[in-house]
């Protein structure tokens, strides 16, 4: 037990920031922004410390903290990180920090906006840090409230009203968590009966040998819950509407990290605790994943609104994560986690750029734009970077995830993987069409008044762009971490690691 509780401080910094912002006079908007920026910066630095301070030679949970909380239920306020959660922790803070800057020019209700945003960030972070099922679920629920308020108050109405979008988003989140709650309670009760004492510790729950039928049942519940969060077909309908309605920062965090709680949960809770259930349910998930990839990619082709394009494309990309999870081997799961990280930074950058453009031009319709690279070269660079990452260009971080997933998944599902790989062509089609129509072509005089990114607007581009490039050029920085964590996790389950022969 080290004297400095680094994870708690990382988690509490945004919460403290939120409280401080609420105590600040509401007309002092400058101070409010600074508090938000500083508190997320502290979290970012600390998570970088965790990222680099994690000892690769010793596997498993590190920086562990645990305080008894609800004794009767065996709940501890337990935090810890391993190779799987560190990239996602880092991702959260990269995006959280960028999101503050992406919404720097928010004009109305600044105080409420930033305090809710910080609460949201803390909530998401908590789910990745928790090693206790109860705490995990608690933070997951903490997320719902700020999301709803942020969307319906600060959102924008285009194809659907922001109220509709916020409602849809929240109800889907809650429906997902309802399935999850049933699963978690069943798990807890069963484990208590088999262990003889109550425990909510994920690792302890994983030591129990549950009957297979029970595993299947609970895993299906979790797949429904987490799958909804991960926008698994056909539970994806919230995603495009939600992102389109949400303000920039919320879209960034939601697409960037919140969605990833689904994948993280499926791995950390689903596969870790219920390996036999996972094995039996996985083929169904794999089929749905393919539907995600191909179906959503096709739908994206026909979208006119930039946010819908990114919204549907993120549904499509989540298909890769899902098939990575469904393949259930070390390689594919490594790829799935990498892909979650990659998609997080990529979509956050995308949304930051689109939000900036929307803020200045008041439109997101692709047909309205054209030749923006003339007026806004930096923004064009940002959009290109995000777009190229999205279509899986090697040298950018998404490629690493996709490639690894494909290799892993090809081991298990031949035909499905072939179909999934065809997604890279469709992605190229819609991304290049969009980028071409927005950025290239003849200069349009009507957009001459638009100013390029400058000052704080550059922060999301720099932070997220660096993450995309570094992750893509030096993938082992992240992948070694994930591989270590995943190996440890799979070693305790009975999933046979597949590889080697066709």
């Amino acid at each position, binding site marked *: 037990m080290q004297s400095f509780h680094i994870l708690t401080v990382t988690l509490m910094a945004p919460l403290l920031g939120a409280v401080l912002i609420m105590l600040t006079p509401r007309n002092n908007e400058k101070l409010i922004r600074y508090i938000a920026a500083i508190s997320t910066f502290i979290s970012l630095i600390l998570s970088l410390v965790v990222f680099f301070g994690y000892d690769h030679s010793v596997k498993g949970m590190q920086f562990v903290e645990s305080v008894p909380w609800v004794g009767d239920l065996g709940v501890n306020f337990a935090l810890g990180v391993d190779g799987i959660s560190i990239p996602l922790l880092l991702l959260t803070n990269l995006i959280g920090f960028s999101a503050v800057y992406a919404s720097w020019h928010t004009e109305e209700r600044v105080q409420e906006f930033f305090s809710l945003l910080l609460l949201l960030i803390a909530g998401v972070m908590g789910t990745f840090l928790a090693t206790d099922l109860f705490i995990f679920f608690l933070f997951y629920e903490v997320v719902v409230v700020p999301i709803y308020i942020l969307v319906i108050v600060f959102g924008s109405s285009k194809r659907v009203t922001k109220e509709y979008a916020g409602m*849809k988003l929240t*109800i889907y989140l809650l429906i997902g968590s309802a399935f999850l709650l049933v699963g978690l309670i069943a798990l807890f009760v069963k484990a208590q009966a088999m262990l003889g004492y109550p425990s909510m510790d994920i690792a302890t729950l994983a030591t129990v040998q549950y009957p297979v039928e029970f595993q299947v049942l609970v895993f299906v519940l979790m797949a429904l819950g987490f799958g909804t969060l991960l926008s698994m077909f*056909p539970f*994806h*309908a919230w995603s495009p*509407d939600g992102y389109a309605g949400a303000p920039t920062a919320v879209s960034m965090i939601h697409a960037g990290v919140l969605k990833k709680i689904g994948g993280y949960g499926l791995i950390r809770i689903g596969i870790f605790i219920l390996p036999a259930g996972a094995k039996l349910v996985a083929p169904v998930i794999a089929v749905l994943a393919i539907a995600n990839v191909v*179906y959503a990619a*096709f*739908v*994206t*082709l*026909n*979208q006119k609104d930039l946010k819908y394009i990114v919204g549907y494309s993120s549904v499509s990309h989540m298909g890769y994560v899902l098939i990575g999870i469904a393949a259930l081997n*070390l*390689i594919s799961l*490594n790829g799935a986690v990498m892909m979650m990280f990659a998609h997080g930074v990529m979509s956050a950058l995308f949304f930051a750029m689109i939000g900036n453009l929307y803020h200045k031009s008041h439109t997101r319709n692709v047909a309205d734009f054209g*030749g923006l*690279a*003339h007026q806004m070269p930096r923004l064009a660079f940002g959009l290109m970077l995000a777009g*190229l990452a999205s*279509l899986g*260009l*090697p*040298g950018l971080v998404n*490629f690493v995830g996709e*490639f*690894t997933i*494909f*290799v*892993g998944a*090809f*081991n298990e599902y031949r035909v499905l*993987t*072939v179909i999934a*790989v*065809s997604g*890279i*062509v*469709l992605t*190229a*089609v819609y991304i*290049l*069409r969009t980028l*071409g129509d927005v*950025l*290239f*072509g*003849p*200069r349009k005089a009507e957009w001459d008044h638009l100013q390029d990114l400058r000052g704080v607007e550059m922060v999301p581009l720099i932070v997220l762009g660096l993450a995309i490039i570094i992750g893509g050029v030096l*993938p*082992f920085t992240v*992948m*070694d971490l994930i*591989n270590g964590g995943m190996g440890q996790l799979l070693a305790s389950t009975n999933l046979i*690691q*597949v*590889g*080697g*022969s*066709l």
Partner: protein
Amino acid sequence: MFDLFSGSWIIVALPFAAFAAIGLFLHRWPKAAAYTSILAMALSTLWSILIAIQVFTAAPGQVFTAAVRWLEMPGLRVDMGILIDPLSAVMLLVVTIVALLVQIYSLGYMEGDPGLSSYFAYHSIFAGSMLGLVLSSNFGQVFVFWELVGLCSYLLIGFWFGRDSAKEAAKKAFITNRVGDFGFLLGILALAVLFGNLDYQHLAMRLTDYHNLAVLLPIALLLFAGPVGKSAQFPLHVWLPDAMEGPTPVSALIHAATMVAAGVYLLARAFFIFSAVPQAMYLIAVVGGFTALFAASIALVQIDIKRILAYSTLSQLGYMVMAMGIGAMTAGMFHLMTHAFFKSLLFLGAGSVIHAMHGEQDIWKMGRLSAKMPVTTWTFVIGALALAGIPPLSGFWSKDEILLGAFSRGHLFLYGLGSLVAFMTAFYMFRLIFVAFFGSGTKGSHAHESPPVMTWPLLILALLSVVAGFVGSPLLGNVFGKYINAPGAAHHEMNIAIMVVSSLLAAGGIFLAWLIYQKEVISHLELKQRFASVYEILYHKYYIDELYARLVAVFIDGSARVLEWVDLKIVNGLVNGLAYFTGWSGKQLSYTENGQVQTYALYLFGGVLVILVGAVLAVYYTVLA
């Protein structure tokens, strides 16, 4: 001396460093950006030459490898490595020399362009990626750089992004390549799953005792999809002619000499896989041969100088692929090298013409350029002679090697096809020359010779086009073939008859072009009228672009529309319907709250009754049981 080799990663790193420097610091100073890029390229070139000298003075068969871990986990390992053998050394030379010359040439050609610093930045990243591709030691790495050169191609085709045509062409190039890469990636995945390792040498070793053709055939075909896209083979050839929207030096470097040849290089690199599967080899040869003929026939009637050269490139790439397919790997690589020199010469010459004509690309509007632009004209003629295969220029030797390979391996059909293409090549090249440089067009009289920074690269390339063939000349013992040789690719004795036949065919083509376009003994207008339908089909490139556009509109965009409808009406419709039903049923139930206290009391006592009956029954049954 091996330090030279272990430091060879610098060859790749230098252009990347130049890119980073331009992107981060120098983009405001275009001149500085340009010189930085050229300097980096020059150093890489120098290093490459030193390495090539080392490789070709050593005994054949020596290989240098090095690798650093890039992506590693149990069951999958992708390294960033370096593999230097004669094959990659040749490619190193070709890529660095052509890239350096094109960059120098661009100083003149692109002078005053507002995007000059990005132009050189893209060139640097292209050079880096291409060299990385050349030096790759495994399929994973090759795929990474393969895509990166595709990106550079995209960026440079769309360099003048203000033009809608450039935007469309860039997009088309990337997407068409992606279709090929789809297959290529699947092939790599299959190899990764099959062998758990993507290293060339490792795979070559494993394949010596792996003979399951049922598995290898699909893998070989999938891998071949990559070269089909990148080297623009039929049916994925459509992007290359459109890629001429980019600046002409770009066309010379990327779309003639280096990147499009990467597909052929990959075929050579992975020759150990392909050669293990005869059926795949045959398909490759047929695809290559067909593309050669098909593209040459289109080139016969095009009027845009760059498009003629582009179809010529397609045709020559088809030649190389055919060479690979018939097993004449050495000949294919040899042709790749010579083609790189004379085709980039031709493109740069065309660029010089376009530069002088202020953007005019229609050959019928040129004419009489020979008087105003002597250097350009004569270097262009040298390039064309080399391409046509007139001895003793480089193209002759390499083309002859291919034809010899086809003939001596019994592929007589392909041999005939190749000879026909040789004839057509000579014809359309000299059609171009006679019309554009010696014709009666008027605009050409206002042209002027390009500055020395542009003509010097032309001269150097012309020299290379003349002499480069001798390294593979059977008269001089075919040094090239001694070093670059695949196991199982036997060497063939030279065959004077074939040489004579191909020379005569080339000369015949030139003569025919001279008759029609210079002497006008046969009226080309009359020909055009007599074979109007053929002319139309050729002029419209067999309507393949139109066909593809229609297919994409019907199948891709059509399914997109259908699926969007499904998403909005069915998936979303179900969700919204459920929400509506919830609201509706709530509304209906709310009518039970009619404000009458007695009604509420009724519900209350009704509830009591139910509970009571339930309790009584429960007690009754439990007591009874």
